[in-house]
């Protein structure tokens, strides 16, 4: 199975939105960050990260979002290889575009395309129609940033949210 990295055309209606790596910083927040995930399975990790969205009041209820994320996984794992997973989706239950991050030291089975355990999980949730059409460019940018081995290695070492932010500030 070939892994296709990188973001190609990713906007609707021909609108080209240029997304820089540092633009991703707008969508992270400290309450959507876990340096040591408890989850050891894919389902548990979806649950753990979705819980952060509830806690930070981005969504009111987890069940609706988990339903959507699990449906998405049935189409093909969002474990894109090299220890990275980016579960994602638009949901009526989300008000804003936000990204949660969780790191798992031991790694977990995510049915990834390379069958390797996943250590870095980025969960991207967006409303059905975000006004600025940011959702797909964000996904593309994340895939691009995480295709770099240096970035992945740095992320595997982060312990605090500040360190995490630095990775995205400092990428070339």
């Amino acid at each position, binding site marked *: *199975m070939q*892994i*296709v*990295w*990188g*973001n*190609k*055309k*990713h906007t*609707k209606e021909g609108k080209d939105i240029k997304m820089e790596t540092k633009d991703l910083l707008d969508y992270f927040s400290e309450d959507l960050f876990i340096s040591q995930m408890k989850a050891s399975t894919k389902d548990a990790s979806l649950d753990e990260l979705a819980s952060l969205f509830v806690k930070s*009041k981005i969504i*009111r*209820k987890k*069940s*609706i979002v988990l*339903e*959507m994320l699990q*449906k*998405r996984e*049935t*189409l*093909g*794992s*969002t474990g*894109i290889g090299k220890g990275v997973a*980016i579960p*994602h*989706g*638009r*949901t*009526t*239950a989300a*008000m804003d575009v936000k990204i949660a991050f969780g790191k798992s030291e031991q790694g977990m089975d995510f049915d990834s*395309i390379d069958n390797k355990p996943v250590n870095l999980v980025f969960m991207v949730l967006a*409303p*059905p*129609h975000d006004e600025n059409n940011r959702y*797909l460019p964000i*996904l*593309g940018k994340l*895939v691009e940033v995480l295709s770099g081995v240096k970035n992945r290695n740095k992320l595997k070492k982060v312990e605090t949210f500040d360190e995490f932010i630095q990775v995205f500030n400092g990428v070339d």
Partner: protein
Amino acid sequence: MLKHLELLVALQDLDVMITDIDEVKQIGFKVGGKEKLKEARSQLAEKLSKPLLYNYENLRKRYKRAIIPVKDDICLGCFMRIPTSLITRGRSDQDVINCEGCGRVLYWYD
């Protein structure tokens, strides 16, 4: 067991996923056939009562979204204030409530 409103939300989320899937694939995700999603959609639609489904499909034709967020008790589709009598019911997800202004199904965020 999902309530009616949750089923509607799940349906709208699926419809959005069907629309997005080709672009998500372009980004580099491994995505299987759309048919699977369409099948899941019909299964979900079957769980809804006929009038609710009919209402949803009609709203979808008229607006981008059939289900619209409510924030600070205001419909973000038409900016009408929701009557107090409907707010508690709406927030509990117990009933499917249509906006008296624009007719869209209301979903409370807070």
